[in-house]
């Protein structure tokens, strides 16, 4: 319990810091913030004062920050200049797309990476080990914005197997429940005449971006699993298990694997940050309508409220993920519970 309290207390300065950065971001932009917000089209003086007041810019700076915090806490992150929608609404509209992409990428990276890493550790210094370690180093070094383009070049342009962009063929009209197309298409398959066709379409659209996004996590997970496993296999208690007459498989799966996976959980938290980075790039390449593409577009269109709100929300999500991972770590490691 104390562990969680301490974690929670550590959270406060971080959140405050992020809010400060986002708060000052708009105010540090050279020029008048109101003019920055309305763009360069010019504005009549009455409207200017109205806006200034609406934005709270006439108040002292501390009070402005307080209002900003209060609003942010209530999910009120301002409105987009481009679409006039609330930032929160725009975010929620796009968030499922990013989550679907990231989860699928991470899921496959974990599902493939961990067994590969274990196998390489067991077969240390074998051909397979060398092969896996070299290819994972290449994967780790891969500029994914280029990798995505190469995947498009091969699978879409040359082979014509997959679509170039989007989440699903526009011919399908899918009722949205969760916003995750893989789930929504399955659900609609029961009701609609199209059957599983929309589902396959969603998968076809997803497969390339997920591959591009999953490559680096896959490489990292495979390497981490291998080295963590090797470290554990060198521990004294593995020698004890052998001396007790345990079989090789039992030693690997019961005595070593669990202990080796604990540090990997921590890596997954760090990976989440790089997945967000990756998602921003991947979504740009594949025109995936998620928050990454949304934020990059907002830079081009100088849509400051969107940048501010987007950065705030994404950092918040990353911080929350770290907390969740800490909690998982806490439950995996008996030492922490003591």
């Amino acid at each position, binding site marked *: 319990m104390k562990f969680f309290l301490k974690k929670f207390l*550590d959270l406060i*300065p*971080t959140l405050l*810091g*992020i809010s400060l*950065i*986002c708060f000052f*971001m708009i105010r*540090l*932009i050279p020029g008048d913030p109101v003019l920055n917000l309305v763009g360069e089209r010019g504005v009549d003086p009455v409207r200017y004062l109205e806006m200034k007041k609406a934005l709270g810019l006439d108040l002292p700076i501390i009070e402005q920050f307080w209002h900003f915090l209060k609003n942010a806490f209530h999910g009120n992150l301002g409105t987009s200049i481009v679409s006039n929608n609330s930032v929160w609404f725009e975010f929620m509209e796009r968030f499922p797309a990013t989550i679907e992409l990231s989860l699928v990428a991470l899921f496959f990276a974990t599902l493939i990476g961990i067994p590969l890493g274990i196998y390489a550790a067991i077969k240390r210094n074998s051909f397979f080990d060398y092969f896996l370690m*070299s290819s994972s*180093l*290449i994967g*780790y*070094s*891969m*500029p*994914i*914005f*280029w*990798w995505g*383009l*190469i995947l*498009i*070049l091969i699978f879409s*342009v040359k082979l014509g197997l997959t679509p170039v962009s989007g989440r699903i063929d526009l011919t399908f009209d899918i009722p949205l429940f969760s916003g995750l197309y893989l789930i929504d298409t399955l659900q609609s398959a029961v009701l609609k005449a199209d059957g599983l066709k929309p589902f396959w379409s969603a998968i076809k659209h997803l497969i390339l971006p997920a591959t591009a996004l999953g490559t680096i996590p896959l490489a990292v997970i495979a390497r981490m699993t291998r080295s963590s496993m*090797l*470290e554990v296999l*060198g521990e004294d208690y593995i020698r004890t298990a052998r001396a007790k007459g345990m079989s090789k498989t039992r030693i690997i799966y019961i005595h070593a694997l669990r202990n080796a996976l604990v540090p990997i959980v921590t890596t997954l938290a*760090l990976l989440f*940050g*790089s997945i*967000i*980075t990756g998602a*921003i*790039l991947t979504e*740009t*390449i594949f025109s995936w309508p998620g928050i990454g593409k949304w*934020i*990059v577009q907002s*830079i*081009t269109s100088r849509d*400051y409220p969107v*940048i501010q709100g987007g*950065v705030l929300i*994404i*950092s918040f999500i*990353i*911080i929350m993920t*770290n907390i969740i991972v800490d909690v998982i770590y806490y439950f995996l490691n008996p030492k922490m519970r003591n």
Partner: protein
Amino acid sequence: MKIFFSELFFELKKNCGAMIGIVFIIFSLFIAFLAPLIAPHNPTEVFADALRLPPSFISGGKAGFFFGTDDIGRDLLSRLIYGSRISLSVGFSVVVISLISGTFLGVVSGYYGGMIDRLIMRLTDLIMSLPSILFAIVIVAVLGPGITNAIVAVSVVAVPNFIRIIRAQVMVEKNRQYVQAAKLFGAGNARIMFIEILPNCMAPLIVQASLGFSDGILNVAALGFLGLGAQAPMSEWGTMLSDARSYIESSPWMVTLPGICILLTVLSFNLLGDGLRDALDPRLKKQN
């Protein structure tokens, strides 16, 4: 120190991957330094009659343009050669900035502990909750896009890695008896931190520096690709990729080549970093 590096090199020589990495790094340094002599053309020179030519070894290519030309008729090979200058100096700047500040903060944080440590750790938490691209977006939003701002953003994001690694090592080292012995003959805190302890943190620092180099190159290229980093007509590889995107179907070489350059450069630093880790990590040594 001299012995340290000669032994390190002895260990590295046994590692095939690391040697490949070193050879390629030396090769790219060579190219970067001699770019004006090697490059067949000026990287910004426009050949109006040679738009999007394929490489000379493919049908349709011209002899003067070995890797072909881009959408406004600039020689791709020359642009790639000059691009290595940018990438290597970007990597170098990122490592220098983040290494110096990260090492200092990490040593102080690990050695003193207490409030200073907590303050610095919260700062790293803060930076780590902002992925590099997001941080760059904030900076670009304020200062506008450009290679310098991109380097600043990427360096700041790289600092926590150095802080954490150095801090962890310092916390181990400061409890060793040689530090107590130093205190006993009257060595001051600054001397203990930077003369006694820091040289013993070299191993993880060197590894992280090598990996930081590749991260720096990759991240700045990514920013260039998003239009947040280097701006045209700079021949930065990420920016070149971004320009080439629309021609992926008709002129795939424009996409392929800059990416391969990024991949190879990043890979060679990662190979080196990996080799260094194997050579320096005592735990791995024990298993051998």
